[in-house]
């Protein structure tokens, strides 16, 4: 049977090319794999091999012809003894089906205040104890490891040293070396191993001594852990937690002082958590360990030793995507997360003394973000300031500003302003470092700008 040989696409972007040279002539016998022509693509000159064996019956496109469209018949192959004339006239290249239009962007929501979930994190009357963030994180891991034997902790100095920041103190004693695993200093490698083990059904907690070192592992966090569920059509993913201190500590210089919140929050497939208080550290870490997706859990070294109210409950968890209103107010909304909450709450105290009533919202999770709580608050106060420690360009605050503009533009009495770290690598000198970070006074001054005081 005669077979048409079509102009091949020889690169991902090729639509047409030059038939540079025929290496066979009519009547030649070719075998599968023989080079029959040279074709110039947009990238290079490629050899074009025969797929089927047979005899070149007719050459339809002469060599030297330029702009030959992909899928145009360029020759006809026949079986020995068959005539090429039996072939119907070469068909025009088939047009590919038109690309279906992407779904239209969802129409802007009508500007009504969204309903907000304001249920408290724990029932009224629950016994409360004071606990540090450090202890809360350890308790969260221990409780989840008791619940689920597939949960394990891996990282540098997590076992025998009891944690570089003592977060895993006591865990080796309780769970043994099979589940509390000291790694060599090899972030890229152990992040990959942990991700592979999650594909196969385990629930690893990977501790990075700091998130600065996770830069060595970021390919596995994003390309392997976050994208596999999608790339596998839902067949397998990576239920795991990457956790450790993030952001500036004190006087440790540029390479050890960076806030990665906005980086990870950009990635579909990841969930991103950044707790401020001890109860959130505990409740959110337990939720993170149970989550079936890769979760980035950003802690803060300075907060580790701070004490907060923590409920005494058998199984206390905090859901993702639910912000916490720490302080209600009517004149301005201050939105923050992680250590930024320290400045936000201090600023609110100072502002109250000046007669400005600030509502302070802790986002707690950055993917998903509880937009509704922010929007409802801005519709009430008509002003918003965001506070975070990260760099100013493409910050979480920038993103919130855009969302507020989309959803509550008519409610704004002033531009949304973002308080961020300065656009500089972290300096070592004490005075410069202080200046590079956000301060409570900056938050106060920014709120005064949007309230025109």
């Amino acid at each position: 049977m005669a077979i048409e040989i079509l102009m091949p696409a020889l690169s991902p972007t090729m639509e047409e090319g030059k038939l540079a040279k025929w290496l066979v002539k009519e009547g030649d016998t070719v075998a599968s794999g023989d080079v029959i022509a040279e074709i110039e693509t947009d990238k290079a000159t490629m050899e074009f091999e025969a797929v089927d064996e047979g005899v070149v019956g007719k050459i339809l496109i002469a060599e030297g012809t330029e702009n030959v469209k992909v899928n145009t018949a360029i020759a006809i192959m026949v079986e020995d003894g068959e005539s090429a004339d039996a072939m119907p006239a070469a068909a025009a290249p088939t047009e590919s089906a038109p690309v279906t239009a992407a779904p239209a962007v969802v129409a802007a929501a009508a500007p009504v205040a969204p309903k907000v979930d304001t249920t408290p994190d724990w029932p009224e009357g629950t016994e409360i104890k004071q606990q540090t963030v450090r202890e809360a994180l350890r308790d969260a891991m221990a409780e989840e490891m008791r619940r689920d034997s597939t949960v394990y902790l891996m990282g540098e100095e997590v076992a025998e040293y009891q944690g570089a920041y003592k977060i895993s103190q006591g865990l080796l004693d309780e769970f043994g070396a099979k589940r509390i695993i000291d790694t060599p200093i090899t972030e890229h490698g152990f992040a990959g191993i942990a991700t592979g083990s999650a594909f196969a059904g385990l629930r690893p907690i990977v501790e990075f001594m700091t998130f600065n070192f996770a830069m060595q592992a970021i390919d596995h966090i994003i390309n392997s852990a976050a994208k596999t569920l999608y790339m596998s059509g839902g067949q397998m993913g990576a239920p795991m937690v990457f956790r450790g201190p993030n952001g500036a500590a004190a006087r440790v210089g540029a390479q050890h002082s960076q806030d990665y919140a906005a980086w990870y929050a950009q990635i579909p497939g990841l969930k991103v958590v950044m707790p401020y208080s001890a109860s959130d550290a505990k409740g959110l870490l337990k939720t993170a360990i149970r989550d079936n997706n890769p979760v980035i859990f950003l802690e803060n070294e300075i907060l580790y030793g701070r004490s907060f109210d923590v409920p005494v409950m058998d199984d206390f968890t905090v859901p993702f995507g639910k912000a916490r209103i720490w302080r209600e107010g009517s004149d301005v909304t201050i939105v923050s997360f992680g250590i930024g909450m320290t400045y936000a709450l201090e600023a609110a105290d100072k502002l109250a003394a000046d007669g400005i009533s600030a509502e302070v919202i802790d986002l707690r999770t950055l993917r998903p973000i509880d937009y509704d709580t922010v929007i409802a608050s801005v519709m009430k106060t008509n002003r918003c300031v965001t506070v975070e420690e990260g760099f100013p360009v493409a910050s979480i605050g920038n993103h919130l500003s855009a969302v507020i503009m989309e959803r509550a533009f008519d409610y704004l009495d002033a531009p949304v302003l973002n308080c961020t770290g300065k656009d500089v690598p972290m300096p070592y000198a004490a005075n410069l470092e202080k200046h590079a970070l956000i301060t409570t006074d900056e938050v106060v001054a920014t709120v005064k700008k949007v309230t025109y005081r």
Partner: protein
Amino acid sequence: MAAKKSASQPNVSAEELKTYYREMLLIRRFEEKAGQLYGMGLIGGFCHLYIGQEAVVVGLEAASEEGDKRITSYRDHGHMLACGMDPNGVMAELTGREGGYSKGKGGSMHMFSKEKHFYGGHGIVAAQVPLGAGLAFADKYLENGRVTFTYFGDGAANQGQVYETFNMAALWKLPVIFVIENNQYAMGTSQVRSTSSPDIYTRGAAFGIPGEAVDGMSVLAVKEAGEKAVAHCRSGKGPYILEVKTYRYRGHSMSDPAKYRTREEVQKMREERDPIENIRSMLLTGGHATEDDLKAIDKEIKEVVNASAEFAKVSPEPALEELWTDIYA
């Protein structure tokens, strides 16, 4: 090729030989068809063909047991067919259709099958090496006696994460077989120009991991080496390295004009070392099969491959809603 000779007189049945012939031929014909569909514009993006390397996966699959895992790079079609994944599902993924293994959302480089214990399909060179060790980590943790075949190329062997993984795999005695498919070219850079020592398998020695070179054009040699490696891993002795010296006939990807080697080099390999021809002549000269028997197999394979191409053309494109699914579990 400095690879070791295969066992002098392999003890292998005619049926086994025919099975290897059939499985290797399926990969070859499937890949030729994929190349053809690429040329027709039905397959887009990158498409890395496995032609020439068929004996590697077929030999190692013959050494595996049900439940063992495998993971590889973006040159993954052969591995999927060899572990029993459905050619229709693989081809339909290549054409980006709903019937593909990843519903069309993964493409040539990203396919998975939980059922067949195939863990991808990874596009970042060498990322699958720690991931594969992680699969083995899970098997050891769960004490299920399984081993993992972690495939990577001679190019990937120069990535740092490979050695981070060797260290931990040896330290923790993970049941993982590192299969270095040395096809002699890292994209367009020959091994001589990129790799300081000719024998990559010896690099395991620094970590106490045993390794050996294997003739990757002989399915029987690969199978024999694979059985040895599997026995080592399954007995709890930790990882093993097989450097399988093989050759890819086609370019790195479909858009590679392959100007870094001579046509004669490729032709010589095809004529003298072809793994399928090798088994074919064993079958014929040993009187295990007639030309007609083999023709029947050829026909059967052609039908399977044509059916997969047909399926990959008629399977619809994924529904637009699929854009938004499988992001979170």
